[in-house]
């Protein structure tokens, strides 16, 4: 539904580009966890996707001519002097919701974010967690094709967080596309079905997380300079694919026999890998390795 082709963006006067040659496709039902250290380009990517900025080069192509985007920014983007109900009613008007759809959407987000007990309370007087829930509710109030969540659950208690994550999954189940950034990698791992890792404006990894989860084991390793002779042909023989990472490569294994053959090959080499991890897939390990240890 949304295609980014060789998208490039540089801020005026900046030495380097905030995004470089980003190409990816986003589909209905995707929950895409966007990971990367500060300055990796996540914010710029969200700005482009929300239509706030236009790419310097490359193209963003939507399946439809127009696309509606629901935003849950990191900032508490609502009016503190208005109550929860008034904020929801105001943004419902701004999103041009009318009639039954308006009532339905408002009731939906009130239930999804568990706001019903404090509807008449002014937003400025709510606790931090409640304010996050209201911020979240306003973002998903808009019927949209694409939703962007930026640290949407910071400061929310564990129980409420699960409720918000459930709301995110419901949106995906309804065929919406979601991009999600969070410093809680476990949270991203819980809901995302696809991971993008950005670093210094480049897309380091774009991989389906469920595919990783479905595999029993994964091998991440980094050879000192280049892979030894025979390594590539062994992978072909075992019907394995190596996904290149910033440092090394990632290989998803389907059975123990494959791991035994690879292990046998590795121990016979005169030089050993600089780094090797074999085990169940872990987003945190994957992320740390791909990004070179930067959080």
């Amino acid at each position, binding site marked *: 539904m949304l295609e980014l082709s060789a998208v490039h963006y540089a801020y005026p006067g900046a030495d380097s580009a905030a995004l470089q040659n980003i190409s990816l496709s986003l589909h209905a039902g995707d929950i895409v966890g966007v990971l990367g250290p500060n300055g990796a380009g996540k*914010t*710029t990517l*969200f*700005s482009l996707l*929300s*239509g*706030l*900025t236009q790419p310097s080069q490359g193209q963003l192509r939507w399946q439809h001519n127009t696309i509606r*985007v629901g*935003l849950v*920014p*990191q*900032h*508490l*983007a*609502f*009016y*503190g*002097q*208005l109550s929860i109900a*008034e904020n929801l009613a*105001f*943004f419902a*008007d*701004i*999103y*041009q919701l*009318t009639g039954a759809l308006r009532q339905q959407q408002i009731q939906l987000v009130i239930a999804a974010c568990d706001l019903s007990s404090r509807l008449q309370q*002014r937003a400025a007087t709510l606790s931090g967690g409640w304010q996050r829930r209201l911020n979240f509710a*306003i973002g998903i109030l*808009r019927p949209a094709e694409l939703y*962007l969540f*930026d640290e949407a659950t910071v400061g929310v208690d564990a129980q409420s967080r699960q409720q918000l994550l459930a709301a995110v999954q419901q949106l995906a189940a309804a065929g919406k596309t979601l991009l999600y950034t969070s410093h809680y990698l476990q949270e991203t791992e819980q809901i995302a079905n696809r991971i993008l890792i950005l670093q210094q404006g480049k897309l380091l990894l774009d991989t389906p997380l469920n595919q990783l989860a479905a595999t029993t084991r994964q091998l991440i390793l980094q050879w000192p300079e280049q892979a030894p002779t025979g390594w590539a042909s062994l992978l072909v023989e075992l019907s394995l694919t190596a996904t290149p990472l910033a440092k090394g490569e990632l290989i998803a294994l389907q059975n123990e026999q494959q791991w035994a053959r690879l292990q046998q090959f590795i121990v016979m080499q005169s030089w050993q890998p600089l780094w090797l991890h074999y085990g169940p897939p872990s987003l945190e390990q994957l992320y740390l390795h791909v990004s070179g240890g930067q959080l």
Partner: protein
Amino acid sequence: MRLWALLAKEWRLLRRDVHAVAVLFLMPLTFVLLMAFALSDLNAGVPAVASVSLKQQADDHNSRFFAAALKQQLTILPDNQDSLVSVITSADFTDLLQQESDTPTPQLQLLFNASTPPVLRQQVRSAVTLALAQTRLQAFLRTNDMLSDEQSLAEQLAIVRQQTDSTLDEQDTGSQGQLLPQANASQHSVPAWLIFGMFFVMLPMANTLLSEQQSGTLLRLKSAGLPPLTLALGKCLPYFMINLLQFSLLVSVSYWLLPLLGLAPLQLNGSPLAYLLLACSIALCSSSFGFFIASLVRSNEQALMLSGGCNIILAAIGGIMVPKAVMPEAMQQVAALSPMSWALDGCLALLTGHGAITDIAPAAVKLLLFACVSFVLAYFIFQYKLSRIKWTALY
């Protein structure tokens, strides 16, 4: 519907902002009441009588007559009571009074405390000059046997006053030359502070727009596809209406409340349609200028400094704090650049000049032109800011 939602939201936010309500309504109301009290004697017909102390170093007939003549106009305080003004006559008062020389010596000395206001100084000067003239006339009449020494001082003074007192027929005229009743103090003081208060919308306008930028609500509004013009109107129109409300409230208070406090009521002379046109012109001017200031500022400190500073400077040069009539000519030309001055001219044309729409048209046209220029400039700056909004909402 979206514009209406923006208007309703702004109205709700304002209603709940105690500081904004204080700045927009309580402060101008307080100003109007205080200034109405302070200037209540202006044009009252009987000016306050100044008090002076009189120190005479001679006790001859002329000195006593001068004291009696001066007492007709000023309050003479007892010797032991302090006064801002002292009138001192010399021992040779009579000789100096009658001297005829090309280089006349002063007949008396006036000592003003340095803090004495110019109006009081002028009142004392006039009174002393008249008393001196009456004393000189009295001396002339006595020399020519037209006054007798057998007559008492009071009788002599009464005869002299018949010769010197004047009755003036003082009338106010309108723009068409028609005679008008003299305007009371409220007609002069209320409009100045009403205009001053209306221009204070700059501060809450700047603060609310800044708050929307910083919180990210403007990001949400932009991403919802709201056109910049709708956003701009959503900011200006509520304050335009607030301005009209301020105008109505302060005029109503001045009309109904001032007489209950024993002050001269505001008399709503002139055409009602002209009031409507003038109120709308001032409101458009102040709300557009407020939007211009709001679009410029990038922090709350800037908002406070720029809006407060602009308001006070425009008021100072526009004849709000000091009447233009008492300004030097160069300052009067500078005053003509202030929209507050145009607004005040329009108000006075109605309140004191009993004017019609044609009388306020020049002021209204200037105000509306200023509103257009301010809005267009502000709109371009606002559009530029909107275009620079990023996901983080910080820019």
